[in-house]
């Protein structure tokens, strides 16, 4: 006689609830696709915005504020990288060069034509976007690893061109600019005002990233990331969108570059070379490219960790490397993923408990 288990359902498939012993697995999962409740999102956004706005008044000192500015303009560039890698799946390790295009465009406009921060900004962003698109052309032909090396080469080439660019690029010495043209009543030489300028731009970048993420455009990019062939067959112009997202990423990079230029007020080729680029890739991975706050978190970690560790410099580097390894090993989706997963685990845990007690009752 066949044994028949009548209690079993007729349709298979639906995943079961989370078992407590699998919590750890949950922590390391990639839950970028899981939406958070609107309330949670709103509270996070308000808390974060409030904290960032209040920062200059917390009495943390100029050093802190300076590093915060660096962090924020880096994060703006990272949001571009987050978009192209996190959403569209195109990684680049030449992103600093793209920021450099913006910075140099603005600086050259300032030196040659006397344009200031505000007037040169649109041109610089546009140029970064165009260059982003042009170096993106190989993505239509080659795969991920190839493109990584190509962007790396581009970056090195960019530095060589700048170094040999004569007075036009300022050669290896670089170019100088004045301070940000003041707006009525706001002088950007004051560090906190400079901070707010960069913060405003960061909010723009965040808002843009958020909107893209929830929009049809964002989904289109993710479709390309996940399966190009299928994307084509549902009518997505994959080539156009790939170039498009690299151009959008270029816009972010251009903005970040100009902010960097006017913060440093002196730029030179090495700022935009291979190693800064590598660190950008590192930050975006560390924070979690697919998560709204991932790039910001990545920028914060990389910029502030050496400050926090504050060991003897060589030891600090070693400790920093070890931290990096631990994060990647324990939180493969980045710190952003880790935070989201902790939230999900707590919430999921409550649900499971509720379900369990119901079952017993």
């Amino acid at each position: 006689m066949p044994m028949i288990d009548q209690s079993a359902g007729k349709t298979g498939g639906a995943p079961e609830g989370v078992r407590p012993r699998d919590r750890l697995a949950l922590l390391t999962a990639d839950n970028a696709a899981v939406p958070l409740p609107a309330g949670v999102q709103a509270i996070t956004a308000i808390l974060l915005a409030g904290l960032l706005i209040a920062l200059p008044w917390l009495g943390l000192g100029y050093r802190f504020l300076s590093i915060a500015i660096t962090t924020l303009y880096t994060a703006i560039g990272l949001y571009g990288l987050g978009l192209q890698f996190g959403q569209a799946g195109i990684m680049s390790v030449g992103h600093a060069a793209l920021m450099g295009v913006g910075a140099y465009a603005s600086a050259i406009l300032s030196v040659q034509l006397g344009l200031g921060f505000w007037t040169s900004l649109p041109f610089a962003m546009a140029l970064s976007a165009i260059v982003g698109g042009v170096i993106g052309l190989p993505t239509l032909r080659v795969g991920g690893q190839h493109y990584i090396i190509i962007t790396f080469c581009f970056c090195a080439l960019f530095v060589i061109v700048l170094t040999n660019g004569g007075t036009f690029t300022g050669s290896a010495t670089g170019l100088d600019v004045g301070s940000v043209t003041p707006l009525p009543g706001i002088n950007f030489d004051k560090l906190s005002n400079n901070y707010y300028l960069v913060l405003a731009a960061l909010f723009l970048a965040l808002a843009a990233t958020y909107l893209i993420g929830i929009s049809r455009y964002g989904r289109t990019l993710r479709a390309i990331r996940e399966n190009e062939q299928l994307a084509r067959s549902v009518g997505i112009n994959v080539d156009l969108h790939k170039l498009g997202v690299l151009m959008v990423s270029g816009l972010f990079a251009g903005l970040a570059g100009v902010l960097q230029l006017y913060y440093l007020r002196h730029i030179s080729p090495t700022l935009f070379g291979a190693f800064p680029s590598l660190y950008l890739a590192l930050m975006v991975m560390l924070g979690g490219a697919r998560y709204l706050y991932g790039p910001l978190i990545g920028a914060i970690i990389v910029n502030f960790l050496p400050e926090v560790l504050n060991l003897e410099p060589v030891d600090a580097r070693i400790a920093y490397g070890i931290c990096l390894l631990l994060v990647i090993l324990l939180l493969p989706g980045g710190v952003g993923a880790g935070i989201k997963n902790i939230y999900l685990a707590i919430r999921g845990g409550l649900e499971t408990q509720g379900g369990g007690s119901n079952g017993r009752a």
Partner: protein
Amino acid sequence: RADEELPIGVIAAQSGSFVSAGNTIVGAANLAAQQINDAGGIKVGDKTYKIKLYIRDNRTDVNVTIAAARELVNDIGVKAIWGTETHDFSVSMAKITGPAKVLQFSGNSSLGAVLDDKAVAEDGWLHYTFQSEPQEWQRSGSTAKGVLSLLTPQLKSPPKHSVVFVGNDATGQYLSSHYVKALEAEGQKVDLVQYPPDTTDFSPLLTRIKGMKPDIVHFWYNGDSTLTAFPQALKLGVAPSYFLFGVDPGIYQERSLKADVPVTMSCVPVCWGSSPYPEVKQYFDKYFGLGAAKGPQSSVSLLYYDYFFWYAKALEKVGKIDDPDAVVAELLKSDYKGVVSPVPLVFNKHHQVTFATEVCMVEPNTSDKFKCAVEQPPAAPPPGDNGG
């Protein structure tokens, strides 16, 4: 009676790729501060100040440099900052020290490119910035004369054709532009060959230079690269004589380098390995005594060291520590007899000093038989060199 503190900042690379340069600033500052404090401090007005150093590692990162400068200037309120060792960083830093009226002593001579009338004027952005090295045309002239005077007797016929071999970075570009002019002013026919920064295999470029049949090859700027390239050149037999900029006889000796042709070398500013001046020898004994590494850049520390004393002297003269404008004015009109030069140092209107460069020649097939010369810099820039 408790002494007051005079806060002074040091920003230098203690990690990252410029460590070897950065460490010299820190070493010199520590030595100078210790000596000044041990000697009783600085008497300003009726108070005595002890130097308190705030040393910050810039991690060879411009953002950290700026943050450190902000911290030192705004959070701590230092009166002066020593550093950095790089042109870019020093320039960005000057944009913070300038408005805050904090004095800045920077080591790079390529600052000369931006230290013009407008920049150093009372409202200029470099009014408070001083370049610790001489004007580049002076150093180039002094060096070129030294090299030629030492080498000419050694060669079969007087040298006519020089190749200048230099790293293609900011400092290299700036320095070599003056040195080529200086050599031409001495009657040399000069070819300039630039190598990419970070080159380790110099053979292709050296082979190419060999094909140009030069009388002297000048390895100009960046002691580390020079020390990499020079042995390769010897093996390839590139030229009948060489000049190594910034390689100290001490290093030559320590590494037991040996060549079968005459080799000259210079130090910036005075050699620790074979110094003509007893004060310099004393200085380096103490400097190395504090544990500093003996590197090709070690002698640069001397510059940063002297300026501490000069600055202290200016403060005493002004009698106030809170009047940076007066200190600048005092520095510009005073002179100071430091270790670096037998004649007193004075600042020109572009905040630069004048001193000669020491050039030494090692006899072929030895590592320690040196003959040195100190040729005074020319009175005016050579033709085609617009100063700086």
